[in-house]
């Protein structure tokens, strides 16, 4: 009996945890995929309107946000390298940098949206109803898709903060870090979606 107990291993399967996270990511990809499909059909029907409406967006802010997200994606990937190398302090720092980048992204988004709201351009506003059909569709899709993306940024931030707490408490360590890996996967997903959102929303010629 005692021999048995010494051989008892903790029941844990990191591969399966990751597979589960990926399955969830698939649903997210198809959710945004559906929106991209709607976008491309309407863009095909109103190419000129989509181009004119996209000129309202600031390419500079969009580009800054792209750089911010790409950078944050690297820092969270580095956090996994750091935890594997048993460097707890660096892991914590890298997670904080990632969360800070997420915050910068949201602040940029706040000013970007705020600017549009000031001009009376927001979903359901009087101005929106007066716009041409193509413009109306573009801005509806713009607000919905970037809004849904921003929601994912907020969720990602919360997940990363939980990761931070777990690392500092010591429940994520160099030999059990699948939670951090899954949190990072979610964060990369947010980056992945933005890679397509940026050229399709900001750069229409």
């Amino acid at each position, binding site marked *: 009996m005692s021999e048995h107990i010494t051989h008892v291993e903790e029941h844990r399967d990191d591969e399966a945890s990751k597979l589960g996270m990926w399955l969830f990511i698939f649903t997210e990809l198809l959710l945004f995929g559906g929106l991209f499909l709607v976008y491309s059909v309407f863009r095909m029907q109103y190419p000129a309107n989509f181009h004119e409406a996209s000129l309202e967006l600031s390419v500079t802010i969009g580009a800054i946000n792209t750089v911010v997200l790409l950078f944050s994606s690297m820092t969270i990937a580095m956090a996994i390298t750091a935890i594997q190398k048993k460097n707890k302090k660096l892991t914590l720092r890298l997670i904080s940098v990632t969360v800070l980048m997420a915050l910068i992204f949201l602040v940029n988004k706040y000013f970007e949206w705020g600017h549009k709201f000031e001009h009376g351009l927001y979903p359901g506003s009087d101005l929106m109803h007066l716009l041409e059909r193509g413009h109306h569709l573009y801005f509806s899709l713009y607000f919905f898709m970037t809004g849904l993306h921003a929601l994912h940024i907020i969720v990602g931030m919360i997940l990363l903060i939980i990761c931070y707490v777990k690392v500092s408490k010591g429940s994520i360590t160099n030999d059990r870090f699948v939670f951090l890996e899954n949190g990072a996967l979610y964060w990369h997903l947010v980056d992945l979606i933005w890679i397509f959102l940026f*050229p399709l929303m900001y750069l229409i010629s």
Partner: protein
Amino acid sequence: MENHGSHITEYKVLVRVLFVLLLCTFLTISVTGFNLGAFTVTIALLIAGFKSYMVLSYFMHLKYESLLLRILVSMVFVLFIIIVLITFIDYSFR
């Protein structure tokens, strides 16, 4: 078994990937500055496709994951492309 999950991606590899991604972003912005007609969006999407490949393989670590996972992920993208194609065939023959 040992090879899975125990792979450590070096910091410098991640930095290099970031540089490639930033270069691609710069390229996308400059390409869309020219008016190449329908090619502009095609090029922008091809670059975005390459960028997502980089993010998936290095940042999301797929390059070092099991074959099962890699096949599953590519199937999702194949599925999406099929959906797009069918939708566009439908719209162009209406």
